[in-house]
């Protein structure tokens, strides 16, 4: 069937069988391999994407269900010039990246939280990323990165 959505800010269209997951459509039809498969049962969050700003496991979402919606993958997060945005930069700075496999999902989990709650506590952040497993870092560097980004965005807003 024909699937149409806004993908990383641009209208996108593809053909896919009805039972094909959004994860596989993103990876195979669009070559957006930043979205990872870790478990395929919705437990690990490596396949996280944003649908209309909400964090979703793309392995549990059929591409057809995403039709007509606004999808953001990790490839749609960076600045227009291709450099990392402030949250991605904070991930680098705070050591929130080790093997990197959970990183795309973690960044999107962070963005989803900050869009909804611009001043999260550390506990809010931990709750927001609890659906995204990381086996390398112990999480606190990820919490640090999201927290510092929240503070910086607040300060910038104050100045604006």
């Amino acid at each position, binding site marked *: 069937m024909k699937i149409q959505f806004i993908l990383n800010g641009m209208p996108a269209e593809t053909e896919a069988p009805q039972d094909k997951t959004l994860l596989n459509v993103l*990876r*195979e039809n669009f*070559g*957006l*391999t*930043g*979205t*990872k*498969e*870790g*478990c*395929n*049962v919705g*437990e*690990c969050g*490596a396949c996280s994407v944003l649908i209309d700003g909400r964090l979703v496991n793309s392995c549990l979402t059929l591409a057809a269900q995403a039709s007509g919606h606004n999808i953001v*993958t*990790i*490839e749609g*997060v*960076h600045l227009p010039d*291709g450099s*990392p945005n402030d949250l*991605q*930069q904070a*991930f*680098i*700075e*705070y*050591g929130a*990246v*080790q*093997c*990197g*496999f*959970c*990183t*795309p999902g973690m*960044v999107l989990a962070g963005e989803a939280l900050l869009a909804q709650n611009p001043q999260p506590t*550390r506990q809010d*952040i*931990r*709750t927001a*990323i*609890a*659906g*995204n*497993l*990381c*086996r*390398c*870092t*112990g*999480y*606190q*560097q*990820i*919490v640090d990165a999201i927290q510092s980004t929240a503070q910086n965005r607040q300060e910038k807003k104050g100045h604006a």
Partner: protein
Amino acid sequence: MPEFQFIGKPTDRVDAMEKVLGSAKYVGDYALPNMLVARTLRSTLPHARILKVDVSAALKIPGVVAAITCEDFVDHSRFGYPISDMFMLAYLRVRYAGDGIVSLAAENEDALDRGLKAIQVDLEELPGVFDPMTALDPATTIVSEHSRDATEDPRGNLLMHYIVRKGDPQRELALCPVTLEEDYSTMHQEHAYLETEGVLAVPVPEKNGVTVYAPCQSPFINRGNLVRTLGLSEENIRVIQPHVGGAFGGKDDLMYQISGQAAKLALITGRPVKMILSREESMIASYKRDAMQMHVQLGADADGKLRASKIHATVDSGAYSSITPFTAWRSTIHAMGPYRYDACHVDTDAVYTNNGYAGAFRGFGNTEVCFALEQAMDELALKLKIDPIELRLKNCLRPGDTTPHGQPLGDDVSLAECLEQVRKISDWKHKHTDYSRVAAKPLIPGEFRRGIGVAAVFHGMSLGAEGEDFAVGTLEINQDLSITLTSGLTDYGTGSRTVFTLIAAEMLGLNPERFSMPRPDTDQSFDSGPTVASRATVLGGNATRVAAEKLGLQLNQSAADLLECKVEEITRHGELFISPKEEPVSFEEVVNHAREMGLTLTSRGRWSPPKIHWSMETGQGKPYFAYHFGAQVAEVLVDTGTGKVEVTGFWAVNNTGTVIFPQGAFGQLYGGITQGLGYALMERVDYDNGYIQATNFDEYLIPTALDVPDIVGAFVEKTFSSGPYGAKNLGEPGLVPAAPAILNAITNATGRRIRSLPANLERVLLGKDLRKEGSSTACKLGLK
């Protein structure tokens, strides 16, 4: 401490940028034109004779392109180190539920599914051995293939027996006023790397060879196995390591098997072959941390001075040996902990069973025995009515001491500093007194109780007397003045590429931005042994240092020639080369002049650690060239109504020597502790009659962000003379003491001792496990 330009300063991980942007390519992200997909049919029985394998019906299915069995390889595809008892695909027998039998390549997943279902395999089920404690009974079924022991030793399933011998602990124990005798057991642990195993094999017809993209621990071992089993030479095979989505020791044997399977299919079909394991297949087929059962006896004087230890351990190696010979040796060496004794005996039996198989996992061997010994120390402290940290300080190894193995220690030993520092930063004295007072009162079910616990660790560096130990690094200055750095040791998320870059930059006085490290590639780097056993910083770091020294000498020769002075007179400021008289010259000028002089501007450094030796017969020697030391404290909140344990605080002090890449060091420490927390409280791989009981993250729970507190880490940076710039390794020791520290804290809170892992709700609440009979359904479904 000397002032460094780059070492110990805040630095970004060299590969972080592509990882945050989502552009870093892992093996599953590669797609080539004309590529086939492949999968392996795996045994649904834990132990069986293979009577017949017929792939003819499968090959008739449209889209199925090729099928292979062990008969398509040299010597039935046998490989394995140090004992060669594994196969790329099973030969004669399957020995665990999940053992591979046939690999199939097809045009697409649909054809693959149908093809796998059409394969006909006749298996004759054999009795299995599932309890390691009965594996050595003379009447038991033989799992292993060797008749070696069957003739001389009736214990045919004995893989290895190791000893440590000092004095006569039996006699000493009889004389000790305070003794302890307890049994402890650990269970298998799944690595749970977020990226499952996968491989892409691309035929290279002009070389009659194959290039294998494999996120494995050790590309050179992978190539060696492929050379042997495919009957090709080293020139025919290239192994490239793409980004690795976590390994933790787990990307060895199964990665080598699927590399062999995909490579063979690529050679037969002449097309690229990609094989990516589902999480279920990964968890069923992959090796685990070994499960151990330990019997511990300790004896002390009334004042708390340790006199004797006597330990017997049984290691479940499962169906194959993998690196259990190394794991079991490491546990034997570390079983008595970092303490002084008048007498000490350790005996370890590693046995074959039909429970999956065990292999390398961060801290291999030491994690298991540390769990037992550090709880035993706590139990002894309670009996002696001595503070647990005091008891450890009273007995811990110190500079100049001799270990129970007969090894004199150097001045790098700093366990006492670690213990004292962790006591301070965790506010131990105050909390331990308070919590112990509450714990002495009768428990009112439903009340919340706090507890605090400590554990100490020593961890032998690198391979030890297990094998030949060396690493090689190279440097080359390119035309554009960038510098290419290679190492045969790989970075699977640990940060070792950044460590090597910083060491080379520091030694050469050149900006780290000039350096780049290609992904490890057997065609472009040199064999450096396996990337295991916390080897990278010291072994690979020293090899990089040696290569940089050599390259630096060439640059100084050029600068001296250019500036008309002696080499010794050259000094440096930033990237400038300075002589006593002339104007300073730039790196570029020095490089250009060096090329005119005919200098190669390439270098290769090789480093081996100081000599070590071990006697299997006397159980004495110098097992490792040095040790890492550390101490950790955990604080818990226990809900005595439900048995839920929350780790509310964690403090860790590790003796790292000079910290080269602080962000990486903290990452290793926090990540290691988090895996230890999972090991302590929730991670559970049961094998029920050979069938694994958890096949995905819905059943196998690992810590989430809500399960881990903010950890406080600190390093004792006492310079280590054999380390590059005084550094020690850190990959494993952060994990090792975490579980016993947490278990000791639970006891401090509840007064109840849990001697089996994991400390789940039932064990904390009732003191026993409630798990019902297992089932083979999930495992069998996962194999469909």
